[in-house]
């Protein structure tokens, strides 16, 4: 009996140590996105992209230096309360807890900002979230990477300037800012006002109440103003409705320019032919021609392990945006491993260092097969944005066509506004900014 007990204990111990060893070689990344509800096209597309990329790294490379990437899905429904619940549920999973969180919602980003900072778990809010978090001295764990809303907005005005024949030609022009009547929608009003003063154009801000499925009165006002350009800052159904209503009121779509949350296939396909000629901003580009996308097709979809059953979604804007999020996540893990131990899972705190020291230059992007998928990115303790440039696309009725180079943002406008806003936040919260 005694021998039997010892044998059982040994088997149990070996099983436990085996599990522990297996766990020790895993890196957990929460997949807190949304697959149902009004914003499911964006949530499922982005979520599909990041999961497909992590799956590809596991299948092709056996993980990051042998550390397998793992994830659990949690449905946030784009709802702040559910987003916080998912964060709490997932933050302690995996051998080292959650590595990083992609909330994919400005509201959820705001809701978990202080918790994540206290828990030392980095939050990547790529192309959304709190713009002034670009000041890493005040927001050490928040990373609005690649381009924030204000940077994007200055690039948009530069693009409009290019179309008009030069920035000096903006003087006297009329621009309407048609925005979703929410914190997200209002975010760019101050930066537009500053630019209106600088370049001498007239800007009119017109709000569209949520959800934006009826915009007749807004577009009649626009027709009265007779603007040269309309900037569309929409989300969800507001986007195709704006494009359709522009057509109904005779406004040319070639004079409409959307934010990157108004620039996915899902925003234009429901509008049908009315969307032809419409422009949108982008910090990631669509397509399956990029080598990294080909690897996803080969190693993930080729093995029947892809996230999408509808294959036409592979390479869409939301999908490649998720892939870019995957690239950043994996490269930051790799950077952190290089400092804290190659082939070992890293903690959230170590990941924070990894993101802050991330340098995806043109050479590295080429090695990753992502040269035309995204722009080079260099993050620092002070600068949590990293990139700042934007490309512009035009919908031809079937697909997005890239119509510009990477247009850099106007940091002479954006950075002082960021630092002023971040300093105000630090003062309110009693935060002593880091010395970077």
């Amino acid at each position: 009996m005694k021998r039997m007990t010892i044998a059982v204990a040994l088997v149990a111990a070996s099983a436990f140590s085996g599990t522990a060893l297996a766990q020790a070689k895993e890196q957990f990344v929460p997949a807190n996105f949304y697959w149902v509800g009004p914003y499911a096209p964006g949530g499922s597309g982005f979520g599909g992209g990041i999961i497909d990329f992590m799956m590809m790294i596991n299948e092709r490379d056996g993980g990051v230096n042998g550390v397998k990437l793992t994830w659990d899905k949690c449905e946030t429904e784009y709802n702040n309360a559910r987003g916080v619940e998912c964060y709490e549920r997932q933050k302690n999973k995996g051998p080292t807890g959650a590595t990083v969180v992609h909330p994919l919602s400005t509201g959820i980003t705001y809701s978990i900002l202080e918790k994540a900072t206290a828990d030392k778990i980095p939050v990547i809010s790529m192309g959304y979230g709190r713009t002034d978090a670009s000041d890493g001295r005040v927001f050490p764990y928040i990373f609005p990477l690649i381009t924030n809303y204000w940077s994007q907005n200055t690039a948009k005005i530069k693009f409009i300037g290019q179309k008009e024949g030069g920035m000096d030609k903006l003087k006297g022009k009329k621009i309407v800012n048609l925005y979703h009547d929410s914190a997200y929608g209002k975010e760019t009003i101050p930066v537009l006002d500053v630019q209106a003063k600088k370049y001498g154009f007239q800007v009119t801000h017109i709000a569209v109440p949520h959800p934006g499925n009826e915009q007749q009165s807004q577009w009649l006002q626009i027709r009265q103003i007779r603007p040269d350009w309309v900037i569309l800052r929409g989300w969800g159904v507001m986007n195709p409705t704006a494009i359709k209503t522009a057509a109904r009121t005779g406004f040319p779509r070639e004079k409409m320019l959307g934010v990157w949350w108004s620039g996915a296939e899902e925003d234009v396909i429901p509008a049908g032919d009315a969307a032809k000629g419409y422009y949108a901003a982008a910090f990631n580009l669509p397509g399956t021609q990029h080598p990294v996308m080909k690897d996803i097709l080969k190693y993930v979809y080729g093995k029947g392990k892809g996230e999408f059953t509808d294959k036409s979604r592979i390479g869409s804007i939301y999908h490649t945006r998720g892939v870019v999020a995957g690239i950043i996540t994996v490269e930051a893990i790799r950077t952190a491993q290089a400092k804290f131990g190659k082939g070992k899972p890293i903690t959230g705190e170590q990941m924070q260092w990894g993101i802050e020291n991330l340098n995806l230059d043109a050479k590295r992007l080429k090695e990753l097969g992502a040269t035309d998928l995204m722009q080079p990115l260099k993050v620092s303790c002070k600068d949590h944005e990293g990139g700042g440039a934007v490309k512009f696309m035009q919908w031809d009725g079937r697909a997005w066509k890239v119509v510009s180079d990477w247009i850099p943002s106007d940091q002479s406008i954006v950075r002082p506004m960021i630092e002023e806003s971040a300093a105000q936040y630090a003062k309110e919260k009693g935060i002593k900014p880091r010395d970077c």
Partner: protein
Amino acid sequence: MNVSFFFEVLIGGLLAGVMYSLVALGFVLIYKASGVFNFAQGAMVFLAALTFVSLLERGVNFWLALGVTLAVMVVLGMAIERVVLRPLVNQPPITLFMATIGLTFVLEGLSQAVWGSQPHGLELGIADVPMQWLADSTGMFISQFDLIASGVAAVLVAALALFFQYTRVGRALRAVADDHQAALAVGIPLKNIWAIVWAVAGFVALVAGMLWGARNGVQYALTFIALKALPVLILGGFESILGAIVGGLIIGASEKLAEVYLGPMVGGGIESWFAYVIALLFLLVRPQGLFGEKIIDRV
């Protein structure tokens, strides 16, 4: 004030109001026959439009897709009667209302589980562009799509009014609406009547879903158009088909005029709640709505 622009806003508002009325009609039908406020009407519009467009995209002929979708909505109506309503006969109205809230989430989830969550474009062959001759002669931009949608709504209302007024089933529906138990006592089959009215509401949802879907695309946000119908119902009365139309016209016109002329003074974006202000003002004067039945309880 630019008179031409004022009339453009007014006409645009009236035509938008007709679109709200289309959704409100579905609510009225069910309330009229069963006293149930069907919270799931928006979800039914979404399901109908999504089924129709998904069949079209799979290469099914337009008319066949229409027929199949109609059949789906009729079967759904009958299933709702059998599974949800029949067990709740003679329960308080709030119980039935709560049941329709549950039904909303089931239908929304089911629709996306079967057909996916991607938005779709829907082309009905009606150009949604301003009529050039009208723009040239008056300077007003009115979409021909809106005019045709108004025509469809008018035909639908006329057909439903005739159905309720002059057919045996219609009279039975009105009897059931007045008093379930009295209707049962005189031999009116309550189960059949409820199944019929839910099926008709399914048909109305299909028409509303096709027109709204062609206007903005078929996507989950179609469920939100129920919110546009609520002030229409409060104003027009929950059991009046005529009320749904008149209420829609008043709400549509007043919210557009308010947004254009009052909105800029207060930062804009007021039309969604201004519609409820109008509805509440009417409610204070006529609690039963413009065309609702005044109920007098003797104590």
